[in-house]
Structures are given as C-alpha cells and as structure tokens.
C-alpha cells in the first residue's frame, strides 16, 4: 500500500506515543508513575492507547507489568464510564483524541485517576457516591405503578427543550472532579465489618457532604415535571440541609468541564431560587 504522501508529511506524526500513567495497586496503597510507549496510529483516542497498553503489558523500559485497569463502556460519550484526568483536566477518555492531545503536549500524554473519588485500582475509581446523591434528591417521578394508566401529562415544547439537556446527564463525575467544594470521602473498612455495615457507614458519610452539581440539576429536572413535583418538598429539604445547594461556591467549573454542556450553573441558580422560596414558606406558611 502506498503511504499517504503529501498529507502525511504535512502533519507531524510521531511513530510512538509516550504515556505516563499514575497507577495504584489498590485502595490505600501508594500511587506511582509508570511510563508506557505505544505505536502511533491515525485517529487514536485515549481508549485505544489504553487497549494497546493492556495488550502489550510492558512499560517503556521493557518491564512486564499488569495491564492498567480502567473503566469504559460505550466509547461514544453517552455512558459516562471512562472519566479520568488527562493532561491535568478531567474528561472522557473516549473523546480525548490523541492527535489533539499531542498538538498541545507533544512529549507525552499524562493519565491519572479522578482525585475526588477513592481509587479502586489504577484509573478506576469508586463513584458510588455519585449515584447515592441521586437517591438523596429522590431523582425520580413517583408514579403509582407500571400498569397501563394512559398517557402522561402534556408537556410543552419549551419545557421539553429546557428539560432534555438536564436529562442528558450521564453521571460521569466530571463536574464533581472539577468542583472545589466537592471533596473526596474515602473510608477504610474496619476489621470485622460486614459488607452491609461498611456500605451503611459509607452512605452515612456521603449523606452530609456536598451532593454535587449533577444531583442539584436532577432535583431541578424532577421538580419541574408535573408529577415529579410531588416530591418537591422532600427534594428541597435535601437541598437545604447539610451538603445542599448552599455548599456551592459558584466557581462554575462544573459547567465548564461538563462533556454534555449541561447548564449546571443555571440549575444551581434555579435550585437556589427554589430553596429561598422554600425557606420562606417553611418559616411563614407552616
């Protein structure tokens, strides 16, 4: 096959890509940097780089090592699995194109796990807290049941257009990683503690910390649904208690790093407005 002529030479294309990965063998163990080198191919993304690293299982010094562990799913930026910190910035690794990364940083690509969640291994972190936040704000429509009861409420086009972007949140955790008010909660299992006890202790710890922009936005989404609204008081109670919307520091990093460009800061402001109204009502209505 003819190597693509003038086009290829005009773009600088290295034959190898250097990758530096912050690895960690397990929870509580010390992290360490490791260098890998993979063959360059056109149209690579960080996922394909990691796939190559897994296949060769060898550092750039030639030492045999275990493949780097990481989490991924759809590879088209709708599942939210493959979040990590790439060249210092949190993002989805599937949409992190190698050519773009090399343009900004030709020497190497730096991969590290998210810093706000406990590391399970290497680039894999435990994001269960993120889903726990969705329970805190009761992010669901409290329907009677799943028997046929006819169509749902009529929804105007405006409402749909306002809600659809919020509903695209894929719980990837980028907003939480970039949020200066969202801090890591990492607990160690006590000796003799059962799975259930440990899980309960973790949930209790999560429950008083900042819920995060994603959950605030979901609360706003469901408060604006004609039936979802029925839980509004409970959601507002959650959003005005410890770790609620008042914990937001308005740094607005969340909206800047959200891969789905969800208007998180607008949701936060809407939640703030609702919280203000709720606080007054609570004081004077009841």
């Amino acid at each position, binding site marked *: *096959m*003819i*190597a693509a*002529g*003038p086009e290829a030479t005009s773009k600088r294309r290295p034959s190898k890509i250097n990758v530096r990965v912050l690895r960690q*063998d*397990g929870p509580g163990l010390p992290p360490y940097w490791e260098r890998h080198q993979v063959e360059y*191919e056109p*149209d*690579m*993304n960080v996922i*394909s780089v990691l*796939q190559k690293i897994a*296949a060769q299982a060898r550092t750039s010094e030639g030492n045999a*090592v*275990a*493949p780097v*562990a990481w*989490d*991924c*799913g*759809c*590879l*088209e930026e*709708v*599942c*939210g*699995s493959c979040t990590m910190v790439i060249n210092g910035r949190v993002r989805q690794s*599937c*949409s992190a*194109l190698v050519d773009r990364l090399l343009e900004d940083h030709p020497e190497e690509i730096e991969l590290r796990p998210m810093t706000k969640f406990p590391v399970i*291994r290497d680039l894999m972190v435990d*994001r*269960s807290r993120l889903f726990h936040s*969705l*329970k805190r704000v009761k*992010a*669901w*429509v*409290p*329907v009677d049941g*799943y028997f*046929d*009861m006819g169509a*749902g409420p*009529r*929804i*105007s*086009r405006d*409402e*749909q257009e306002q*809600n*659809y972007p919020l*509903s*695209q949140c*894929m*719980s990837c955790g980028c907003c939480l990683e970039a949020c200066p008010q969202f801090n890591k909660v990492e607990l160690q299992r006590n000796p003799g503690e059962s799975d259930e006890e440990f899980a309960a202790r973790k949930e209790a710890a999560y429950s008083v910390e900042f819920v995060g922009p994603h959950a605030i936005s979901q609360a706003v989404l*469901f408060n604006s*649904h004609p*039936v979802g609204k029925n839980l509004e008081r409970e959601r507002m109670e959650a959003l005005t208690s410890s770790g609620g919307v008042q914990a937001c520091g308005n740094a607005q990093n969340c909206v800047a790093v959200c891969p789905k460009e969800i208007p998180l800061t607008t949701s936060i402001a809407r939640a703030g407005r609702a919280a203000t109204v709720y606080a007054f009502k609570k004081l004077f209505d009841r």
Partner: protein
Amino acid sequence: MAKNRVLVVGGGLAGLSATMKLAELGIPVDLVSLTPVKRSHSVCAQGGINSVNDLTRQQGDDEWKHFDDTIYGGDFLQNQPPVKEMAYWAPKVIDLMDRLGVTFNRTPEGFIDRRRFGGTLYKRTAFAGATTGQQLLYALDEQVRRHEAAGLVKKYEFWDFLGPVLDDTGRCVGAVAQDMVSMEIRSFPADAVVVATGGCGLVYGRSTMSVFCTGSAASRCFQAGAKYANGEFIQVHPTAIPGADKLRLMSESARGEGGRVWVPRKPNDPRAPKDIPESERYYFLEERFPKYGNLVPRDIATREIFNICVNEGLSVDPTRMCVYLDLTHIPRAELDRKLGGILEIYEKFQGVDPRDEPMKIFPAVHYSMGGLWVDYEANGEGGLLPGSPRNQSTNIPGLYAIGECDYQYHGANRLGANSLLSCIFSGLFVGPGIVNWIQANKASADLPKSVFERAVSAQEARHKQLLSNRGGEGENPYLLHQELGDIMTRAATVVRYNNQLTDALAKVADMAERGKRCSLADSGNWTNQNVIFTKALQDMFPIAQCILEGALKRDESRGAHYKPDFSMPSLTSTDPAERRREAEQWCDAFDENTNKYLKTSVCSWQGDAPELEYEDVDTRLLAPRPRLYGLVGAEVIEQVWKERSETRSGQNSEKKLVGSAH
C-alpha cells in the same frame, strides 16, 4: 413468598424494566451488572421507539400493521404470537415511559412528536433528541433506584455473571457471579434468573456495541444447556465511523439529507478527496441504483459498500476499509440546521469537520437478532397468554431471557426503532409469568447448600486455573480477540460464502483451543480486568461457532443473512409471456425455499461444538410472502403471488387462525 428472590442479570432497558416490574409485584430483586446499570449499552440507541399512535391510527394505521411490518421486515422468521403481543403493547409502553418522565420531543401543542423510520409508511417513532435509548434507560434507572432506596432491589454493580446454578432436576435455582473489584466469587440463590445481557457484538472485534457486549453471559447459559437460536442473523449498519477502538454509528439521515457515497476510481489514490475531480470519482450507489441513488435500503447499501472495498479494492484509506460519505457540496448553514447533532459526533471523534472534508464510513456490526431460545404460550387471539411462566423462559426451567439476548422479536432482520420496544416490552411482560413460576415451585432458599457450593467451587477452579497461566508462551487474550474479530468480520457479516464459513469454523474451533491456553499479564486477585476479559473471550467462541454454523447450514438469503450463491435471481426475459413463466417459476422456488428454510436454527452445546437443529416457525397469523425490494421483474412476481395467495386463502380461510399449537 417472603423469602423468594429473583436475580436479574444485566441492567439495560430489558433488565431494568423487568426489575422494576418485579419490584412492583413485591418480589425482591438482586440486580447483577458488569457496569453501573445507568451505563448499560441501551444508552447508545439514538433513533427512537415505535408504536401506533392517535395520529397514525387516523391515517389507517393500527397495531396489526405494526405487527405486519415487523414480521415482513424480519422476513417471517419470528414466531408470530410474541411479535403480535409486542405490537399491541407498544402504545402502552410509550405511555408508561411518558409517565416516567422521558423527555420525548413534543409537538407545539405538547403531544409526543413522531418521526418516520425505515420499513413503514407511518410516523410511528417517538424520540428524545438523538439519545432516545439513553433517555428511556434513565427513566427506568430512576425507578429502579427508587425501589433500591426502598430496599426491594439490591444492586451488584461491577459483578460478572459466571453461569446459572442448576439443581439435580435441571431447574435454575440461582447463579454464580464474581465481584470484578474484589474478585470474590459467590452464589446468588434465586427462584428465577432473568438474563438480560444484550448482544454479542464483541465477537466481531469492533462493532457499534459497548465494550461489555461480549455475549459471554448468554454463552455461559448456552454452555450450561440453554439453547441458542438464529445466531447467524447479525444486523450490519451500512454507515459507521471506523475507529481504532470502536465503530460509531453515523445516522442514515446524513444520506437522507443529500449525502453522496463515493470512492476514487483509481485504487489507492493518494490525493486528498477534494483534489479528486468529479470525473475520477465513482459514485457507485448512484451509478448502480439510478432510481434510489444513495438512499437504497440498508442491507443493499451495506452490501455495496462492503463489496467495493473488499472485492474491488477501492477503499479510500490504505490502512483500513472505508468509503467517502460526502456532504461538502451542501451549504454549511443547511448542514448545521438539519444535521448539527450527528456531524458534531463525527467531528468530536474524528477531529475532522465533515462540512469541509468527506466523512469516512464503513458498515459495522450493530445488533444480534439471534439469541437465547425462549418459549411462549399463545392465547386464543394469537397473542401471548399474560402471566404464563412459559413466556420468555429458556429451555432451562427458571432461567429467563429478555431483550437483545433473546431471539424472539426481530426474525432475520430488525426494523429500526423496534429494539427499544422489544427490550422494554419483554422486561415488563416477563414479570407476572415469573411470579406464577415462583408460586408453583419450591423456594431455592430451601435447597441444600451443596448445590450452590458445587457451582461456586467449579467457577473458583476455573478462575484459579486461569490465574496460574501467568506469563510464558501462552496466548495473549487481547490479540486473540482481534484475530477472532477479523475472522468473524470477514466470514460472517454482510456477504457469506460457504467455503469462507467452513474455513472460519475450523479456525474458530482451533482458536477456542488456543483460548484455553491464554496466559495472563496480571495474576493478582484485585480488580483483575485481564482475567475477566479472558473468561469473556473464552466464552465468545461458542457463540461465534453458533453464528458460523447457522450461517453455513442456511443455504438461502434471508434478511441480514445474504448468500449470493443461493439468492433468488431476478427475472431476465423481456418477453411478457416468458417473463410470466419465469415469475411462476420464481414463486415455485420461493415456496420451496420457504418450506426448507423458514425455520429457526437452534443450537445446543455439545461440550466442544454446537449442534444445529431446525424448528418450525409459528406463522399462524401471517403467511410468508416474498420481499421484492429492488428485484428486476418484481411487478410480475407480485402479480403471480397475489393470484396464488387469493386461491390459497379461498381454500384455507377457515383454518387460518387455528394453526399449530406451540
């Protein structure tokens, strides 16, 4: 009832709707999933979900027509009662999803907006932006979280299903699964196990499917004795964006809005696309199908693109196969308005603006119509009997399969926007049947512990054996997977030849042996993705063998399964009388082929290879008729066929609804 539990494996649309329904019926559910359920592959579905609706009804549409379109689109290979039931439930499914808060696009008045999809004349498809699957999944995920918060559902996320547990009578009484973080292997006693683990795209290496769609869960059931049906029917989508890691879907609407497909006439032309003059471009779809141009049906587009790259060597990229899908002749503003969303996907993943440079696309494996064989019980009207424990049950009592991993709804070819429907429908419908099953049987919690201990220790042995293969000269599982993908993609996607299939079968059997000798780069026992992947790989081979075996034995073309050597020919004569005679022959041949091959291929595992049997298809409601799209002489054949079916229906009008009891 109190100590009864159900285990659901898989948290996509099917698994979540089953979980939610069972929870509503008061049954505690353990939900095992490879990934947090909100990240399941259902999120990738873009298009929409079909149902008859108030608008189409007034245009003459009804549930029967939706049923007919689905059967016709599937080339009559489905058993008809489940499909009928699904079509009649479709409006109810959409109503339910609407109530759950799915952000369906709306009309100005606030009704659910609909679009038209392939294979029908009506605007049946409800959609939520370009992420309908994601929106539907989230609604179900939220409901399941609600039940989880109430304590009725317990999720086991990042757990790998290793296989069903059968008691001495062969009944499924639970499953064994492995925590992918701590690597703990344990059993889950359950009074019924529902497998909802999706498709098997990874058997083809790269596909449009997510990384966990390995088919390994279905394979583990298959190897435990469940039957696997219609494996050879794999839908290939004509336009996907080739990537080093996966093939991403490029919506058909790009061609709908005027996109042109071409390659340079000269093989390996090194010039940039815009430097190639019109005269040296080969718009092969437009030239070969002047009437339909770039908008030929999916299967034809797929075959042509495949052919131009594989057989004619005209791929536009020296390193891989692809053709240009060109939109650059359309004004930017128009593109942004009509195709903004999907063009952004291309730009995001290819780093190239498709408004300036033609897209590079190639067909990609997209959906498995086949899957675990499941039973059904029909009612008097030819639909399903609600609450029957036989519905969605595999041949292993107590083991159920729903969603993409069953074989039941799409026959030889799936209609666009029907998959989301079949997943949610089968999930909702299976619930009451399971409740009845549980009530009729002894609780699994009362079984001797040894049943479960035995199953766990077998899996532990397999695990330990794999971990002991560290380093050394063994096979690299990742490279072996690539090899499998290459073989399968060559032999068993768009165009199939018996010599290639025979060859591939031998190779895959050999690879299955090599797969047993995989050596691992990671022998640790903490979040070892290496060993999890290797197990999945080993379990891909039986499914690959089912696909190849089914394809090899099926000497016909039907739906997604296309064998040029056995296709029904077009009519050649121009003389009307002669043409008429050819059409008569054609219809005879069609009848003969129907008698021979309108059958479900059912594989059962024999320890090292699948054994294939054929089973009659339940066509009690609609008689098979030929699909004539794009065939020369179609009008004449249609005329002959019409006359014949009129005489037939005159003879059998009384018997029509009776059919054979399944």
